[in-house]
C-alpha cells in the first residue's frame, strides 16, 4: 500500500516485522509431503447472531467460517429478476488476487444451485473467513469452503436445489451436484493434466469424496432437525 492508512493506528512505519532464520535443511522434502487425506471435520451452524446464516467447519489445522447476509436490498438501478450473489473470502495466507479469483469461481458455482429466481431485486452476500495454517494450495481447501457455504445457506433458509459438494484430488477441486451426475465447477491451481485417463481417475476420486461430504452434510442436517424436535 503506497498510501498510508490514517484512519487507524498502525504503529511506526520504520518498524520491521520479526524475521526468523530460514530453515534450509529439509525444506525440499516438506514440499513433497503427501497431501493430507480428507478428514471429516466438525460442523457447527447458527453460530453468529448478526447474519442470517453461518457455519464453521473445523479440523485440527483449519477453521473456515462462512456467514451469509441477505437476501437484502441492492443498489442496482436496474430491475433484477434474479438475485445477485457475492462471495468474499478473507485470509491472511493467500494473496488477495487468488482469493478474488476463487470468489468469482464460487459465485459461478453457487449460481448453478441457488434458487435465484425466488429473490428478485435482492442480493446475497457470502463472507468466508479462513483461519488456517498453510498445508497446501488453495484448491485443497475448496471442499471445506464449499461445505461451509452450503451449510451456511441452508442455515440462512435460502432455497437451494441440491446439496452440492466438492472433492479434491491431484490438484483438481471438482464440484458436483445431483449425486455426482453433474459437474458444476473445476478449479485447478497448478500443473498440467497429463492425459484423459488420469483426469478421469481424479474425477472419480473427487466424486467419491463428494459423496462422502454429502453424506456428512445430510447427517448433520438431519441430526440438527432431530435436536430441534426434541427441544
Amino acid at each position, binding site marked *: 500500500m503506497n498510501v498510508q492508512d490514517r484512519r487507524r493506528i498502525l504503529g511506526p512505519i520504520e518498524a520491521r516485522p520479526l524475521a526468523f532464520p530460514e530453515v534450509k535443511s529439509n525444506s525440499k522434502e516438506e514440499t513433497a509431503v503427501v497431501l493430507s487425506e480428507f478428514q471429516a471435520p466438525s460442523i457447527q451452524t447458527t453460530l453468529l447472531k448478526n*447474519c442470517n446464516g453461518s457455519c464453521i467447519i473445523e479440523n485440527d489445522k483449519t477453521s473456515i467460517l462462512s456467514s451469509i447476509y441477505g437476501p*437484502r*436490498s441492492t443498489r442496482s438501478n436496474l430491475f433484477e429478476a434474479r438475485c445477485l450473489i457475492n462471495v*468474499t473470502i478473507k485470509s491472511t495466507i493467500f494473496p488477495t488476487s487468488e482469493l478474488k479469483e476463487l470468489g468469482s469461481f464460487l459465485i459461478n458455482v453457487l449460481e448453478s444451485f441457488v434458487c435465484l429466481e425466488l429473490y428478485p431485486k435482492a442480493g446475497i452476500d457470502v463472507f468466508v473467513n479462513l483461519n488456517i495454517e498453510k498445508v497446501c494450495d488453495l484448491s485443497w481447501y475448496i471442499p471445506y469452503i464449499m461445505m461451509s457455504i452450503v451449510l451456511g445457506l441452508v442455515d440462512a433458509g435460502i432455497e*437451494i436445489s*441440491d446439496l452440492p459438494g466438492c472433492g479434491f484430488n491431484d490438484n483438481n477441486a471438482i464440484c458436483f451436484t445431483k449425486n455426482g451426475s453433474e459437474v458444476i465447477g473445476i478449479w485447478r491451481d497448478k500443473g498440467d493434466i497429463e492425459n484423459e485417463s488420469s483426469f478421469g481417475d481424479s474425477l472419480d476420486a473427487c466424486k467419491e469424496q463428494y459423496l462422502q461430504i454429502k453424506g456428512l452434510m445430510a447427517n448433520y442436517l438431519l441430526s440438527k*432437525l432431530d435436536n430441534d424436535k426434541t427441544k
Partner: protein
Amino acid sequence: MQGLPEQAIPGQILAPQFDLLEPVVTNNTNGDNDTPMKEDPTIIMYINGTGTKLINYPINNSSTNSKELTVISSTKLGKVYSYDVDAPADYKNLDQSRKIQFKMISVGNSELMKQSQGRSESNNILPREGDVIICRVSRISLQRANVEILAVSTKNIPIDSGVGTNGTGTVAVQGGSGAQTFSVSQASSDVGETFRGIIRSQDVRATDRDKVVMIDCFKPGDIVKAQVISLGDGNNYYLTTARNDLGVVFARANNGAGGLMYATDWLSMTSPLSGITEKRKCANPF
C-alpha cells in the same frame, strides 16, 4: 403411493408430480388378481409450495433408455407439510372422467408455516405483490412518500438488518455509527440499506384520489402499514394505503419531538398528553 417423508434436506426428492391414489378396495378377499377395480384410482397432482421445486429427474440412467420424470424436490431444511388445495387457476382438466386431487407440498420449519397452510414461510424480508408490510417514512414530496420497508407482516424478521449488524445506533456505546460502509450488494453509498418503497399520492386513499395532500397524510418518521402493489423498478417497491386497515400506525407529534399519538378518526391523530392534533392518513386501529 408412498407416504411423504416427515422431514427433508435440500435436494431430497419428496414426491412425483402425479401420483395414483389406489382406492381402498378389498382386493384380497377375492384372491383374484385380475379383478377389475371397483373404483377408478384418484390421481394426485402435487403442487410445489414454499421450500420445494419441480425438477426433472432421470429415472433410467442408461443412455439408450433415459426417461425423465417430473418430481418435487426439497430446497430447504425442515418438516414436510402437505395440504389439500383447490385446482390452480391455470389448470385445465382435459379428461373429465378422471378424479384429480390437488395437494400442496411445502417444506419449512416454523409456526408461520402452519398458520399460512404452507403458503408463505420465509426468513427473508422480500416483499411480494399483495404482501402487507410495515415501513417507515423517510421523505415526503408533493407527489409521493418515500419509505423504507421494515418488516413484512406475515414473515419472520431477518436477523441481519438490525442495529446490531450495521451499528446505526446513535449511541453505539463508546463508539460511533457503523452506517458509513455498505453491503457488497450496494454499489453506491446512501443511508440505510433496507428495501425502499414509494407511496404515490394517488395510492394513498381510495376516494378523492386527485386531492390528496401528501404532507397531510404522512410525516417523516411515521410507521406506516401498506400493501405492495408491484415490485416496481430497480429502486423502489410501489405501495398503497388505499384500504381502511392501511395507513399510519405509529406517529409522534411535532415531527417526532412530541409524544406518541393515537388515531381519533381516519384523518387525524391526537397526542393525549399535549392535546396536539395532527393530520394523518390513519390505519383503522380496530
